């Protein structure tokens, strides 16, 4: 015996949701890797760019200092050094001029060590004869480049790009997913619900869908189609078997009449019809008299023959709409509907009694049996099959005791 644990049902999640959820983790991982790489590359690029810009700045200011230094114009030179020190990237600037051997400084205290980039360049005057004269030396200390600054510089751009790509990818995935999976699945589901029976074109909707999809989904549906066909065959077979079984279960194999099951069903239906149409009916319980001696004297085959013939005579004696069943042994029941008047009932009882009593030939012997018939009217004598059968049974035994 298999024990199934009581688990709460999983919340329904579409295939697309599952697909996106599973895709999200590698995407975020890829983003993290790409971001880290980009930040590091950006940092190094920023450093390289910064170094180039710092060199350019130092060169530019050194060039602008050439003339003032050649003219020994320290006031102008000090102004240029101050302007240099006021640049955001510059921490301190120091100029050593050769004319008056003065040191012109601006900005913070120049650090002799540390991570702050420092540049020093000689300032050279070139005269009209291309002779070079050292007129001073410029030292510039810059603020150090921060990796956080460099990261923030590139990160926001990267985030915008990432979310744009993510949006486009999710939208694209949704469209592709719907076209290649969701919509075919919907059509397959509709086709399955429509059924596998072929239409006028000779093919079923499912087959038509399978033909449209020469892919994995088509293969699955093809397998499903074949399974359904096989299942249809099996179900048909089972139905046939069930019908045969039901026939066997409901019929008396000896006489071909219905058995107690048929009696129950038919009597219930007759009762409902009588109530609905206000047309009375009756139940006749028939017990054969003299049957057992024949069975004991002439054998079971003779008894079976008596029962078969009795069944035939009872069926012949009633309308086709009436029901004749064998309860078992030598007992029969007849259900008669649309019965009008006591005379009619009695005439029927007499008719059936006479028919049963007619002698029969069996193996060169003339055999005959009688019948005790008890009747119950419905709905006067009962409105349930059990009550009617009890009433008919009593009436039948009353007749039998009067013999």
């Amino acid at each position, binding site marked *: 015996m298999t024990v199934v644990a009581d688990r709460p049902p999983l919340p329904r999640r579409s295939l697309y949701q599952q697909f996106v959820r599973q895709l999200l983790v590698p995407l975020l991982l890829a983003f993290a890797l790409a971001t880290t790489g980009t930040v590091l590359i950006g940092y190094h690029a920023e450093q390289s760019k910064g170094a180039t810009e710092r060199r350019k700045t130092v060169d530019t200011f050194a060039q602008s200092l050439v003339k003032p230094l050649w003219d020994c114009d320290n006031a102008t030179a000090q102004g240029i050094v101050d302007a240099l020190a006021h640049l955001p990237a510059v921490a301190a600037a120091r100029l050593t001029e050769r004319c008056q051997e003065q040191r012109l400084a601006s900005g913070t205290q120049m650090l002799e060590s540390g991570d702050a980039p420092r*540049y020093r360049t000689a300032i050279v005057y070139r005269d009209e004869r291309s002779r070079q004269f050292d007129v001073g030396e410029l030292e510039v200390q810059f603020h150090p480049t921060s990796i956080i600054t460099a990261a923030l510089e590139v990160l926001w751009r990267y985030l915008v790009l990432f979310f744009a790509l993510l949006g486009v990818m999710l939208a694209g995935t949704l469209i592709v997913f719907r076209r290649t999976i969701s919509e075919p699945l919907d059509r397959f589901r509709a086709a399955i619900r429509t059924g596998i029976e072929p239409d006028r074109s000779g093919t079923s909707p499912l087959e038509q869908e399978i033909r449209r999809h020469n892919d994995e989904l088509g293969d699955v549906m093809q397998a499903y189609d074949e399974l359904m066909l096989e299942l249809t065959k099996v179900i048909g077979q089972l139905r046939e078997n069930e019908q045969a079984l039901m026939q066997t279960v409901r019929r008396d194999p000896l006489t071909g009449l219905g058995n107690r099951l048929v009696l129950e069903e038919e009597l219930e239906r007759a009762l409902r019809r009588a109530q609905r149409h206000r047309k009375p009916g009756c139940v006749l319980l028939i017990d054969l008299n003299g049957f057992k001696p024949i069975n004991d004297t002439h054998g079971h085959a003779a008894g079976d023959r008596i029962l078969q013939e009795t069944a035939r005579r009872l069926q012949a004696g009633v309308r086709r709409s009436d029901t004749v069943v064998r309860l078992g042994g030598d007992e029969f029941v007849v259900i008669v509907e649309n019965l009008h008047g006591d005379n009619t009932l009695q005439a029927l009882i007499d008719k059936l009694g006479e028919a049963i009593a007619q002698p029969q030939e069996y193996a060169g012997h003339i055999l005959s049996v009688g019948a005790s018939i008890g009747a119950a009217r419905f709905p006067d004598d009962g409105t349930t099959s059990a009550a009617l059968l009890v009433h008919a049974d009593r009436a039948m035994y009353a007749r039998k005791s009067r013999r």
Partner: protein
Amino acid sequence: MGFQDTRGNMLPPPSGRARGPRALLRRHTVLVLVLALSGLPAAGAPPVLVVQNEAHLQHARALVGAALEIGGMSAVFVDAPKGNERRNLHMISAGHTHIDMMPATPARLRLVRAGRLRMIPVPLDRGLLGYRVNLLLASQRDKLARVRTASDLRGFNMGQNIGWMDVEIYRHAGIPTKEIKDWADGEFALQMEAGLLDLFPLGLEETLTHFLPHFRKTYPQLTVDPHLIVRYPWFRFVWVSPKADADEVHAALRRGFDRLIASGEFLRIWSRYRRPPAADVLRDRVIIDIDNPFYGPGLVPPAWRHLLFRPEVR
């Protein structure tokens, strides 16, 4: 952390004032060049001297060359780089220039007193540098006609360029003097028309030969005052580097100028390049002498003082 130059090359770390071998080498580029060219160790080769050379100094350069030669030293001249007075002063006091021929200024005299510059007080311009004439508006051409003394000039506003030594001289004489920024094309004419300035004095020779025609291209309303010459002691001397490698140069020049002046050769050479002011320029002009607060005529040795141009004793 080391240093980088602007080409990314590593430089030696600073040690206060740059005194490393490379710094010294850079500082004395010219000197090293001169020494290499002069080849002092090589016997027989004339030394190479770095000497100031400008277009208006041809007479001075000729006199220096003649003095050196007659003083017993033959040399090859290499032009000193062109620069302003502060640069020139630095170049010669640092020994990068051996000889220059500039007017005597308070700064030069201070360096001489400090032993950082050597002066040979020979008046190369014969004192003509101190002869000044006034530029003024043509419409006011005769406004100085009645001026006879320095006191008379105190009623006029003079203009001079910022930083010129003349400013202190005029102010010392009690003449109101304004320093202006632009003058090279005669821009002061506009300030004269606005009434801010009356006069703009410049050197006698240079005004007549160069400045007046030049200014009148832009400001034709300018002219030269025909009534006055202001004169003060202002001499162009010969200056020699204080460095040891110029000792022989200095001595040769001293000897040479003594001999040149004594023989009259000085004036003959001078006359090849310069001429005294024309007689008609001086004839109708009153000469007003004012003092130079920084030095007087006594700066020129008595033996050489006769070289100074004196029109009144001709």
